[in-house]
């Protein structure tokens, strides 16, 4: 069993009639477009401030990439890998990888969801805060009387004190 590189991707050629994995057909354009749309919307949402939106963006983008893995396994329509037959079978490895990837995505989704909830508990919102360096720069600029308004800036170096908004 071996693979051949051709203009339409890789073809698995085998002397064994049991396994004719079909990967040479060009995958469906609709699926490719769906991958593009999912990843694009995912990236857009990842750039948001709110953790919930970031989470949704992560879910969309990773689903897009999961579809991409399926696409890497070649076109659909072939029989699943089961029993012995001489007809082309679909690539089982891509499906196994998608399963693993889905499980990982699920676990991380739960974790980020928990973080967003905890953030809401603490502050009443779930927005990702500026990092310390950003705030230091902002304070520095404010001290020099440039663009930022010092009233917006938190008091301590660490900024958000845990007691704020907890009550």
């Amino acid at each position, binding site marked *: *069993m*071996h*693979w*051949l*590189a*051709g*203009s339409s*991707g*890789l073809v*698995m*050629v085998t002397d064994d009639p049991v396994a004719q994995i079909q*990967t040479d057909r060009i995958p469906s354009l609709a699926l490719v477009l769906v991958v593009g749309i999912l990843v694009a919307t995912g990236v857009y949402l*990842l750039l948001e401030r709110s*953790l919930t939106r*970031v989470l949704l963006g*992560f879910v969309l*983008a*990773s689903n897009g*990439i999961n579809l*991409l*893995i399926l*696409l*890497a*396994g070649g076109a659909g329509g072939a029989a699943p890998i089961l029993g012995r037959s001489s007809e082309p079978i679909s690539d089982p*490895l*891509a499906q196994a*990888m998608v399963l*693993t*990837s889905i499980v*990982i995505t699920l*676990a*991380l989704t739960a*974790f*980020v969801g928990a*973080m967003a909830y*905890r*953030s809401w508990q*603490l*502050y009443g919102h779930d927005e*990702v*805060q500026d*990092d*310390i*360096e950003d705030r230091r720069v902002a304070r520095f600029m404010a001290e020099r009387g440039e663009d930022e308004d010092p009233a917006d800036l938190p008091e301590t*170096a*660490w*900024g*958000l*004190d*845990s007691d*704020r908004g*907890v009550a």
Partner: protein
Amino acid sequence: MSPTVLLPLVVLLPLVGAGITLAVHRSAFIQRVVAMTVLGLQVVVAAVLVVLVDSGPVVTYIGGWDAPVGVTLVADRLSALMLLVSSVVLVCVLGYAMAQGIVDRDAEAEAEKRDILPVAVYHPTFLVLAAGVACAFMAGDLFNLYVGFEVLLASSYVLLTMGGTAQRLRAGSIYVVVALVSSLIFLMAVTVAYASTGTLNLAHMAARLPEVSPAVRLGLQLLLLLGFGIKAAIFPLSAWLPDSYPTAPAPVTAVFAGLLTKVGVYSILRTQTLLFPTHEAGERRVLDVLLVLALLTMLVGILGAVAQDDIKRMLSFTLVSHIGYMVFGVALAGEASTAAAIFYAIHHITVQTALFLVVGLIERRGGSTSLERLGGLAKASPGLAVLFFVPAMNLAGIPPFTGFLGKLGILEAGVENGSPLAWVLVAGSVLTSLLTLYTLIRAWNKAFWQPASAEVVARRVDVRVPRGLVIPTVALVSVSLGLTVFAGPVYEYAERAALGLTNRTAYIDAVFPDGLEGWTVKDEEAVASDGVAVDGETTGDGVASDGVAVDGEVSP
């Protein structure tokens, strides 16, 4: 017992340990015993592996499926050495964390709410992290590397946000989101690799990639570098690190600083040397970009460190900066530079972790990590001063420490390379080294040397630093000193590891002991098209050309 059993063991031991510690979460004592035993065993196994693989890579086919069908675990000199160093570091940090857990429960740390470790969750998570690190080091295929990364990242999310305080949540959300994005990019690279080569086994990919069109290969290389670059904190992708690491408890920061970025560096080293060897013009261009990024990483990182008042944040910036040295070594892509990069990675794992543990002690003794609020510690606690001074000088690269030897090796390789860019990097490295010395001396002067003001003395907690915390720190500092004493053999081992990386055939032959016969396109294609060796770039059909660039190097 065949040595192939050892490879799954390094991943399984901590995972089983994690299961047990989770089951017995009510008994902190049993948790500690199990965690320490498991990691101790991992050190032993890793040490055995280091000796074994010196005579050739050890390969395990999980479930009896031969490569490239099944999951393959491969240990060569590089991965075994990295595994040994990281398990030693993990044991020391675990010891420190245990002591901190005990001390904090006894003391009134509840009131401070800063450095409390919920021990019940800590141990299982820490062991899963160890399993993930081991899995990443042993991975023989790209997807398994991805899984290893996910395992260690998932546990790092839990460790970093442990306790769910406001500060950690803020730092954690940035860290988690950045890590998620890097994982998505890595997964995309895995998919591209699979779609273009039809395999994910690294050795198999190494044989197949020359047949892939150069444009796709370049895209794959950049995707992998982007994914690993975020994890390793290479300059434009490094902003997340100094912000998130310092908020975690000392033992967590220590292990993150020591290990996580180095797993990224390891992955860059592995994929660059195995999949994209340097003789192609396209790959050379990528390496030049990497060299520039290494320079920027060093300089931007260390300038950030100079500006910091807080020791933890300062050390996080030096961590970023010194990643640049390793990237410099990798990007020079010679045997000597690779050896120096490996040696530097080992040095940096031990020293950076030791420094973060010492900072944990400083925080305990001086009541703060801010340089403005510390002073006179050398008089108050001379032992602590020595513990800080030795790894600090080591990090700055003062002879005869390992930091000096590693930097010297990288500089020699840079001078030997001789290109103008390499010379610029050599200058940048020396400057970075001096600035590192400056920042560390400044920290030393402010925290230890200058007389303490009354205010500082008032804040100082006048209790001895608990012995349980000191012993693991001393152990780790001794390990770094041991590396200095035995630098000769260790450096030679790193050189042999580099030889194994630049000369890929040993690795590929180990994974495919029966040769790649039947697994390559070459023989078939050469016969079919009457040996038309097409150089992908000249077919002129653009990206989608079926450029079957036949490359003689990897033929079985």
